[in-house]
């Protein structure tokens, strides 16, 4: 199969995936609304936390902005998983398996919808942050890096959703992982910097939780400018999750296509 044929296949499936995502307001609206709602409530409700000695900024809104990006990415898992499970349940994958379509094209095409949603989310959260005075300390280049990191996080979580959908073929199972991913967000440095977390067990969990480093990567660009270590850890964790989830999804797709 030539490279142009592969590109054509990816293009067609990507177009389908993007259009399908945009045609479902029930998928886009909560993915934008809920992170913004939590941001609005927490930034006002927890502003007094900035009075703690060692808190890195005097604006909790600026601190909490990173949460919206990661929480939004969690919705990617739901969105990708729901779309893939619908393809399994409706027999779309069965029909595709009868065609000479390459698996990699199917995977890349499906992921395009996640990335499109992730891009809308990242741009919206950035816009809201800037409009409400968060300011991006690392400037315009930093904002672009935030978008890139946010897309990588969306890709990782989206692949987890797609993996569960391919393994189980069930939309309900995809819904079932949402609380687990939500727990990963909550058991991180979401609400306070790790060095200000008082409980030892919580600090240990937050230290081992890759979501902490994803948050801190974005947060560093918003609050302190260019912090090589925070960025390296953020990209390493997001990239690591994405890589593992992508490998697992590829394997699950191979099994699913063979089964059909």
């Amino acid at each position: 199969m030539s490279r142009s044929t592969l590109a054509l296949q990816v293009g067609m499936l990507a177009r389908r995936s993007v259009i399908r995502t945009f045609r479902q307001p029930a998928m886009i609206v909560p993915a934008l609304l809920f992170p913004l709602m939590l941001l609005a409530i927490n930034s006002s409700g927890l502003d007094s936390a900035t009075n703690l000695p060692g808190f890195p900024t005097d604006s909790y809104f600026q601190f909490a902005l990173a949460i919206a990006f990661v929480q939004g990415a969690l919705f990617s898992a739901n969105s990708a998983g729901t779309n893939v499970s619908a393809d399994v349940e409706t027999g779309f994958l069965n029909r595709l398996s009868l065609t000479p379509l390459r698996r990699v094209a199917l995977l890349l095409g499906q992921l395009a919808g996640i990335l499109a949603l992730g891009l809308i989310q990242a741009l919206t959260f950035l816009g809201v942050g800037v409009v409400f005075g968060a300011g991006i300390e690392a400037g315009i280049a930093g904002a672009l890096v935030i978008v890139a990191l946010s897309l990588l996080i969306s890709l990782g979580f989206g692949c987890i959703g797609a993996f569960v959908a391919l393994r189980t073929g069930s939309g309900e199972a995809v819904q079932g992982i949402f609380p687990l991913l939500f727990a990963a967000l909550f058991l991180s440095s979401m609400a306070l910097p790790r060095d200000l977390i008082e409980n030892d067990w919580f600090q240990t969990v937050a230290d081992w939780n890759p979501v902490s480093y994803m948050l801190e990567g974005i947060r560093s660009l918003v609050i302190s400018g260019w912090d090589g270590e925070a960025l390296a850890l953020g990209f390493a964790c997001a990239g690591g999750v994405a890589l593992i989830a992508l490998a697992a999804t590829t394997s699950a797709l191979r099994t699913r296509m063979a089964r059909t």
Partner: protein
Amino acid sequence: MSRSGFISVALAVGRRNVHNYFTNPAMIVPGLLFPMFFFTAFAGGLSRVDSVPGFDYPAGYTAFVYGFVLLQASAFGGIFTGFSIARDFESGFSRRLMLAASRRSGIIAGYWIAAITRAMFNILVITVVALVAGLEIAGGPLDLVGLYTLALLVNLGAVLFGSGVAMRLRTMQAGPAMQVPAFLVLFLAPVWVPYDLLVGWVHAAATVNPTTLVLEAGRGLIAGDPTKVLPAFAAALGVAAVSVLWARGGLRSAERAA
């Protein structure tokens, strides 16, 4: 129509929904999981916040957060029962139920029995977890009776609100119409810090939100220092009374459609 008709309908609907709840993990988990998340994440991750100048709650941050998750678990017990009502309408069960019930208001009472059971189960699990995590309740037995009665009134208000929405829209897609207002009413209150430490628009919203009174009274009862108890009961009863009218309107709407 006799009172026994009302009671028998309420008991039958209540028994069915309680049975469905305890035999279906997909119904148990969401109402339990979210308050647990909030408790774990905030009692564990935010406990340093009680060192903020002006944070004046002697029972400690775990008890402070427990006051909120107790309320949340009660409210979610009611709201998720609203989901069950919507599901019953979608499946056609409610239409048959309304034809068979001698007193239709007993249907709402039956759903409340289920909602109370759900809330009590959620509260029990969360209380055990909180006690294991170091919760110290300084309030006496009378304070605790007040605290849990307040929680059940919140549950009543939530199930009546949820059933009003579910009976008007009669579809599972009505879920966000129940969940989002409940979420907003719960969170636009002094959730993570006392009222005096709130700033900006949340402070303004908390001033007019009856949840603030209920939350402050609940926390006072936990700490053994009852404050604003009567206004809190009045607020909870007021919300429940308005919700009764809302639920009755929903029942009429469902009857017209049946």
